[in-house]
């Protein structure tokens, strides 16, 4: 405030001190509270007093930026709510030109609009108006009318009003920003709540051989994807998976409605084709505002031997049986577009095959080159993980997807016969017995062990031990003159990991493979010693048919965590 222009009165120092004291006071009043209505009306009162004016008013621009509205006024006439187009009258001009207006003789000044005066009998003699300036331009104006002393407003008065306008616009701006933050925080809270509610709509994971597994990975906070499964009166299982077009809160709300509609109509065991028809009729009765719903519905017996599905605009269901894929295309358009539509379904003898139903988010995943992985990418993904049991397989597939770019919600429903007993297969892989292969195998093992919840320190030791075992096969079993593959199987059973390595090299005499004492400074024999130290036990046997060797290693682990978007 050191730049306060000197007021050219005789009593300049005294006036200056008074103005500064008032400014400090006013700023304090404005800073105390973010409740604008109260502080502004108090501020305008004090401004009128300080300026010795009969009336004072504060105008603010509306959202369109074209009209000014009187928000606070003091004086004999209440003009609160009065609206003035920008550029019109003294106030409009102050804002349009972003410059103070001084009117010494209001009766003979063309800028002054006298319509209010003639309505009320109030006579405007002299007035002063300063814009409420911000960095982004004026947000309104501050006006004082008629000196109580009867004199006219001067250029000095205009300067003081300009100074008073500064903390006023600052306070208004602050209050507006604070309000915006409060709004944003409320929005975020509501989004979080919606997200939690949505997640709670997804069905709980069922154990004991239940043949359906679902995973949902939302790309944005709020998901338009859904899936559900439930028991039918005849003992079979009804299931559906779907995707509401578009994103955001309204897509999510529609999803909630569609999911409950699908469940309601499907729970009596209505055949899949008819099930979709009825849901479509219901959805077409109300406007979806241009949105539509892609869905796949179906029935399965509890051993997933026979599955009956029908789909509406949903990506093809993929059946995987021993390395071969079969596609089942949707038999109708998406739901909610046209009433009276019919849908064709598929009866599938699944037996021991797997049926994958996934939303288009899976095919839309982008690879490192930002290309969508497409249905080829999805097939390759399924094939890469095919050796694992259902649960670790989905975990593995989704942990791979998470390393790519998810652009859309990604949801997958897997239907296959689950063998409730026995070990869980975490990994099966065949690879050429060559040193250059090992880097990739180590990386694969790390991911698999991570997904299985193995603690990092143990994981690294296990990776080392497997690497050592493979290197021994490469170096000593096959040797420099022979070549072949290594088969790696990793299973988990009740907290015990089992690693099995098969080769087709000439049989190795197990008696010759002995760990040497550790800590000896010798360059040979360290690999077996490391395996022996890391694993709880290990056995090497020649395969009974004399073709190759079998190394089985065990390690008991305590699982620290489980990865993946499981809904347990």
């Amino acid at each position, binding site marked *: 405030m050191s730049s306060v222009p000197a007021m050219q009165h005789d009593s300049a120092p005294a006036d200056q001190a008074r103005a500064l004291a008032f400014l400090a006071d006013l700023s304090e009043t404005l800073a105390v509270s973010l409740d604008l209505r109260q502080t502004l009306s108090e501020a305008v009162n004090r401004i009128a007093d300080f300026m010795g004016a009969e009336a004072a008013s504060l105008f603010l621009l509306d959202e369109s930026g074209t009209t000014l509205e009187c928000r606070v006024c003091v004086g004999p006439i209440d003009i609160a709510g009065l609206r003035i187009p920008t550029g019109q009258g003294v106030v409009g001009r102050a804002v349009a030109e972003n410059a103070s207006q001084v009117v010494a003789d209001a009766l003979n000044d063309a800028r002054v609009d006298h319509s209010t005066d003639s309505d009320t009998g109030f006579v405007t003699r002299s007035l002063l108006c300063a814009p409420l300036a911000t960095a982004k331009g004026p947000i309104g104006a501050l006006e004082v009318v008629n000196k109580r002393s009867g004199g006219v407003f001067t250029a000095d008065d205009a300067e003081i009003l300009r100074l008073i306008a500064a903390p006023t616009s600052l306070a208004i701006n602050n209050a507006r920003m604070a309000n915006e933050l409060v709004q944003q925080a409320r929005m975020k809270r509501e989004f979080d709540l919606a997200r939690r509610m949505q997640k709670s709509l997804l069905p709980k994971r069922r154990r004991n051989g239940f043949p359906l597994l679902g995973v949902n990975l939302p790309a944005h906070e709020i998901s338009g994807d859904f899936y559900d499964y439930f028991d039918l009166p005849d003992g079979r299982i009804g299931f559906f998976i779907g995707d509401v077009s578009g994103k955001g809160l309204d897509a999510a709300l529609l999803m909630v409605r569609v999911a409950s509609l699908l469940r309601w109509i499907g729970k009596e065991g209505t055949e899949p084709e008819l099930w979709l028809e009825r849901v479509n009729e219901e959805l077409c009765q109300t406007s979806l505002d241009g949105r539509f719903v892609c869905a796949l519905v179906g029935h399965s017996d509890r051993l997933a031997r026979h599955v009956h599905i029908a789909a509406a605009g949903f990506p093809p269901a993929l059946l995987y049986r021993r390395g071969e894929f079969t596609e089942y295309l949707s038999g109708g358009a998406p739901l909610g577009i046209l009433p009276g539509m019919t849908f064709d379904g598929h009866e599938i003898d699944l037996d021991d095959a797997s049926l994958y139903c996934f939303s288009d988010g899976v095919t839309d995943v982008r690879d490192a080159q930002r290309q969508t992985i497409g249905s080829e990418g999805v097939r390759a993904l399924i094939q890469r993980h095919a050796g694992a049991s259902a649960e670790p397989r989905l975990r593995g597939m989704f942990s791979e997807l998470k390393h790519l770019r998810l652009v859309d919600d990604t949801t997958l429903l897997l239907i296959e016969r689950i063998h409730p007993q026995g070990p869980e297969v975490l990994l099966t892989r065949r690879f050429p017995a060559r040193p250059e292969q090992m*880097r990739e195998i180590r990386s694969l093992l790390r991911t698999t062990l991570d997904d299985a919840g193995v603690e990092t320190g143990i994981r*690294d030791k296990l990776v080392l031990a497997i690497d050592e075992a493979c*290197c021994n096969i490469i170096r000593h079993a096959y040797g420099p003159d022979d070549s072949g593959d290594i088969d790696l199987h990793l299973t988990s059973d009740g907290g015990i990991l089992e690693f099995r390595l098969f080769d087709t090299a000439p049989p190795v005499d197990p008696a010759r493979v002995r760990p040497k004492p550790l800590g000896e400074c010798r360059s040979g024999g360290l690999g077996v010693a490391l395996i022996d130290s890391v694993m709880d036990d290990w056995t090497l046997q020649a395969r009974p048919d004399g073709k190759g060797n079998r190394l089985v290693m065990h390690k008991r682990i305590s699982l620290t965590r489980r990865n993946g978007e499981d809904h347990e």
Partner: protein
Amino acid sequence: MNGIEQETAEGCTLIRLRGEVDLSWSQQVRQAVLEALSTSTRVGVVLSEVSYIDSSGIAALVEGFQNARSKGSSFALVAVSDSVRAVLELARLDRVFPIVADIEAIPNVSGAPAWKP
């Protein structure tokens, strides 16, 4: 990713290894170490950027260490990464090798800090 760099600093030959030292290139590591010991009496192997090492990589280091001892040269592992240290500990070799934090700490004569109680 994987790489060997050799440099000379303060009268000492440094072999800087990068990446995952495994069977696919541990022979190159072995050769680089032995060559450095044939021309220098003070050799350090920098392991700060090695994220994995297997027994064939450890063997190359062991051979270097034995070679240095037989000639009365000095040999040390420098700035050992956590993953390398874990393997050295597992092999109980963390107390066999002279392991130093930086180049300056590489001893001038063989042996002295190699055996800790």
